[in-house]
């Protein structure tokens, strides 16, 4: 072998180099971010803090804000937020419908046309012939401003928004029980509780980062119990110690039966009941504890088990788990709210906390989860509904109107004293020609309203101006004018999430094309409609925010200490927060925590929303849904979200991964039912309700109870809301999206 040792090493080195050349070095994404900007996630009511990474004026990535309550974590949707901003479907120029087609126009043309149409309608038919339909995803400042423009500037109380479809029953529940809206607890209660009572909420898919916190709590202590009440075996039920797979619609009986168990097992808190609670029936007549107990006698677990669809033993277990736990936390969402007895369901959940005194202590609270990122905050707090004025005041009360008139600097008694039309009434009035002009902001009613066939004619008939980001939103099919707004981190503004936490979305990048901030669009439009410019003297959302702080300061809401400067520095503050050095309030109605209660107040708790300072335990009977299953329509249809998609899909369907993984809606059907109908997984089946019919691919399994079918509602090509019912809760006016009757046919 003449190859010298030296030569061999040389050749080996050459070979190694060649080999090395062949190894594909993984291209690292360029992480030289120019700067990180603080924001709040665009999606659900969890309100996670998000940091957006900007390079060369573009958002290139996002990560969780470690200083916000989510401690840096994000969910599937939140982690994939960046591509939504750069969707090719962004509206970047004003559009006007000409010859049936939306065509580009100038800002002046679009604003003048809209202002003229609204003005003409008001002059001819009065202020109630126009309306505004907003969103729990608009900024707090946008909703406050739109509400002021319409109520004070145009004298129309037809100010509504999609929170009516989502949280109205929670508002009704809290105000009837505690006299004031909004949860009294906070997310930190999750870390301190020993029993989760998750009712009608698929937290895992709808509030994923909160679910992680719940799962963490459960993992940290094996004694922590999780009760899930849901007619579907959702991913949330995976961590349940007790899953009550109830029949949809009969769960009011379950809640009363749990109260019965609590008293029978002597798990009630007599001292709390004596000091802080009184009992009322549906006629608002006050009752004694004994009378309440007699009312509960009709709801023994044995009497209601068949109706509820679970065993009496499981109801006993649920009542004991809730009552025996040192701290219990109820979490609920659309399963309780989107019902014709949504307010009652909310009341009955709060009852469980009031009879056991499990409220206002770490880990104990009746906590309603909000669906949208700024419904709890921006809409409910600022009075963005037809019966509300800012900061918990109502139009029907003269004293409240007068307070607001003074704050807004308008003549006394000049506000319209008649509450406006609630959502379904507003769209019905549009069909009848009673409301001629509607301005929408950041919402997609042609997809999200129930019983769409009934309401779409109204959208078609009226003059519809939309401030909308995406050209493929269904509602734009009916729009006469479209205004392109700045989206998410393209402008600054405030979101308020489920736990009364307000946090700032900072402006990180410039908006594309001719997009403008919605606050400026609203101000410009108002002035052109003839609203006194002194009523809307705002240059930007910060000006509006500062006025809102002032307006709230004389009420128990009190945002005075939540300054813009603090919001820029901190990652969220919980109201009430009266001064700049106040840390925010974790638990309301508790002396020492709630700044509305004087330090020398004699009692530990004060439910100051009610005149007598006591919370109400309501005697609400079981009532069936508006349209239960029957012989002709033997299935119950329920709808909901999936973790991948958000609401009407206009944002999530812009993310390639999500669009690919979840391109279309399907129907979930129980395997026993499928067998009987000869349906196999992947077969096409037709769902037929009294309002419409639609074909879906079947997913056969044991997720749904027998007799129940589930369809996610994000898919614009399969609008399940053509089948849902528009029956509403008589108190909250929220539609019963969660339950209607249907039949299923293999096609």
């Amino acid at each position, binding site marked *: *072998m003449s190859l010298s040792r030296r030569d061999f090493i040389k050749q080996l080195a050459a070979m190694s180099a060649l080999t090395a050349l062949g190894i594909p070095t993984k291209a690292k994404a360029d992480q030289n971010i120019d700067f990180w900007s603080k924001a709040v996630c665009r999606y659900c009511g969890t309100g996670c803090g998000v940091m957006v990474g900007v390079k060369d004026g573009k958002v290139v990535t996002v990560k969780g804000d470690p200083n916000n309550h989510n401690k840096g974590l994000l969910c599937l949707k939140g982690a994939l937020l960046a591509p939504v901003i750069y969707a090719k479907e962004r509206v970047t120029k004003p559009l006007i419908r000409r010859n049936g087609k939306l065509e580009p126009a100038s800002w002046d043309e679009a604003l003048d046309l809209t202002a003229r149409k609204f003005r003409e309608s008001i002059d001819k038919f009065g202020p109630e012939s126009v309306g505004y339909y907003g969103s729990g995803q608009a900024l707090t400042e946008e909703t406050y401003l739109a509400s002021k423009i319409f109520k004070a500037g145009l004298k129309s109380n037809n100010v509504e928004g999609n929170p009516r479809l989502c949280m109205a029953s929670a508002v009704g529940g809290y105000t009837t029980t505690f006299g004031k809206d909004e949860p009294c607890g906070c997310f930190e209660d999750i870390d301190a509780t020993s029993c989760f009572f998750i009712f009608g909420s698929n937290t895992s898919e709808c509030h994923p980062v909160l679910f992680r916190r719940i799962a963490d709590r459960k993992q940290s202590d094996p004694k922590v119990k999780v009760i899930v009440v849901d007619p579907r075996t959702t991913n949330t039920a995976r961590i349940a110690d007790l899953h009550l797979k109830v029949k949809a619609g009969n769960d009011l009986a379950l809640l009363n039966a749990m109260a019965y168990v609590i008293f029978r097992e002597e798990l009630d808190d007599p001292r709390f009941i004596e000091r802080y609670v009184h009992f009322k029936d549906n006629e608002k007549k006050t009752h004694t504890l004994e009378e309440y107990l007699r009312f509960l006698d009709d709801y023994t677990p044995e009497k209601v088990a068949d109706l509820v669809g679970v065993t009496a033993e499981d109801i006993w277990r649920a009542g004991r788990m809730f009552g025996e736990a040192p701290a219990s936390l109820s979490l609920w969402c659309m399963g309780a709210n989107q019902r014709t007895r949504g307010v009652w369901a909310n009341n009955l959940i709060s009852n469980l906390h009031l009879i056991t005194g499990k409220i206002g202590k770490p880990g104990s609270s009746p906590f309603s989860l909000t669906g949208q990122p700024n419904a709890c905050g921006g809409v409910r707090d600022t009075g963005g509904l037809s019966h509300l004025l800012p900061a918990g005041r109502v139009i029907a009360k003269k004293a409240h109107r007068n307070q607001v008139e003074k704050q807004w600097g308008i003549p006394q008694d000049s506000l319209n004293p008649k509450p406006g039309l609630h959502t379904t009434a507003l769209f019905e009035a549009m069909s009848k020609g009673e409301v001629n002009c509607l301005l929408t902001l950041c919402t997609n009613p042609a997809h999200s309203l129930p019983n769409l066939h009934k309401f779409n004619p109204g959208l078609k008939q009226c003059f519809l101006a939309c401030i909308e980001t995406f050209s493929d939103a269904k509602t734009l099919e009916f729009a006469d004018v479209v205004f392109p707004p700045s989206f998410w981190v393209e402008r600054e503004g405030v979101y308020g999430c489920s736990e009364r936490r307000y946090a700032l979305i900072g402006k990180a990048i410039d908006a594309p094309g001719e997009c403008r901030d919605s606050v400026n669009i609203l101000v410009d439009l108002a002035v052109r409609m003839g609203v006194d410019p002194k009523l809307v003297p705002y240059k930007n959302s910060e000006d509006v925010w500062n006025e809102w702080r002032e307006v709230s300061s004389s009420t128990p809401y009190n945002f005075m200490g939540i300054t813009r400067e603090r919001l820029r520095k901190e990652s969220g503050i919980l109201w009430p927060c009266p001064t700049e050095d106040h840390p925010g309030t974790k638990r309301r109605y508790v002396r020492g925590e709630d700044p509305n209660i004087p330090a020398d107040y004699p009692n530990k708790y004060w439910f100051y929303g009610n005149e007598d300072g006591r919370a109400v335990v309501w005697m609400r009977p079981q009532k069936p849904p508006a349209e239960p299953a029957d012989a002709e329509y033997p299935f119950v249809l329920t709808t909901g979200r999936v973790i991948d998609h958000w609401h009407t899909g206009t944002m999530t369907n812009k993310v390639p991964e999500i669009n690919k993984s979840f391109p279309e809606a399907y129907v979930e059907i129980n395997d026993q039912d499928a067998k009987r109908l000869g349906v196999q997984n992947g077969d096409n089946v037709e769902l037929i309700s009294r309002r419409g019919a639609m074909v879906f691919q079947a997913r056969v399994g044991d997720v749904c109870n027998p007799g129940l079918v589930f369809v996610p509602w994000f898919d614009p090509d399969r609008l399940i809301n053509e089948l849902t019912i528009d029956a509403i809760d008589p108190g909250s006016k929220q539609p019963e999206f969660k339950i209607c009757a249907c039949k299923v046919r293999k096609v």
Partner: protein
Amino acid sequence: MFKTKTGKWSAVALLAVIIVAVGGYAYVMAAFPENRCEAKHLTDETKMAGDCYACHVKATPKIAQDWYEGKHGVLLVKCFVCHGQPDGKGAIEFAANPDPDTVCRKCHDPAVNRMQEKYGLRAQCNECHPYHQNSIHHEAFQKTQSKKTLD
């Protein structure tokens, strides 16, 4: 350089071996890239869309089971959130081993910073923190062990 016949032949043989090795390597890298999904074509079908789990529970049952039982599975952090989509057209780079700096940081920025301070930024978080086995139920590890025994 090569003074004898044997030397020449050795050089030719070595060159041949190198060519075959490099060629073979290049072919393997092209045909079987690290980020290859055998079922890429299937993901265009609605029925199979994005359902990585359905395939992987058969193809790589241990990994699929670990994910399902692990924190990411319980919390529905689905495959594509970290691995991207098989056609590589997604917002996340399709990768068997997600890059800590661009992927893991999205949710675990404080933890990545802590680890970076201690050990420097590693190429993979997975080497020390098996992300599919971090369990909520404390079962994943046992299940992994039982599978190892069975195999």
